[in-house]
């Protein structure tokens, strides 16, 4: 029972992550705000890493490397927010 539930839950999380990817991609096409592109890329990466984890049975030594993708995902989100909060240049300096 427990062994059956884990892949199902992972599949559900991966699907939710994929739907979030598409939503953020749509927001990016509507607004051209790079924040949404970063979010879309981050959730796409999350989708892939969760599918990879659910479909393979990595050894204890290899498993942490699957989580490096997740670390990159969080890094993308942090980069997106920092980039969004950075003050914008007006483009008039030096004129």
């Amino acid at each position, binding site marked *: 029972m*427990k062994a059956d*539930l*884990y892949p199902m*839950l*992972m599949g*559900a*999380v991966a699907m*939710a*992550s994929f*739907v*979030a990817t598409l*939503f953020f991609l749509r*927001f990016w096409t509507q607004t051209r705000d790079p924040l949404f592109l970063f*979010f879309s890329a981050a959730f796409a990466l999350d989708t892939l890493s969760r599918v990879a984890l659910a479909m393979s049975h990595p050894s*204890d*030594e290899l*498993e*942490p*490397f699957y*989580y*490096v993708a*997740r*670390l990159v995902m*969080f*890094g993308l*989100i*942090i980069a997106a*927010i*920092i980039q*969004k*909060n950075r003050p914008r240049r007006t483009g008039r300096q030096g004129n």
Partner: protein
Amino acid sequence: MGPAIYLLCSAAAATCAYLLLQAYRRGGSRLLLWSGLCFVGLTINNLILVADKVIVPHIDLSLYRTSAALVAMTVLLYGLIWDAER
């Protein structure tokens, strides 16, 4: 190597949650709130991962951590579907 990666994942998820909720508190859109709440859930997911892999490796916590991730993503999807336009 493994414990460091798991701990970094938790710290990075918590940082994301903090930055998103702080941006919402400064007057950002409602989407920041839902994203922030999602990352609170993903932080819990990664903290259970640390417990599962490092603290109590003899106890299988995979269902608990994956359930936390599912709740987190469901919160985000709710926000994206019902509340993103406000």
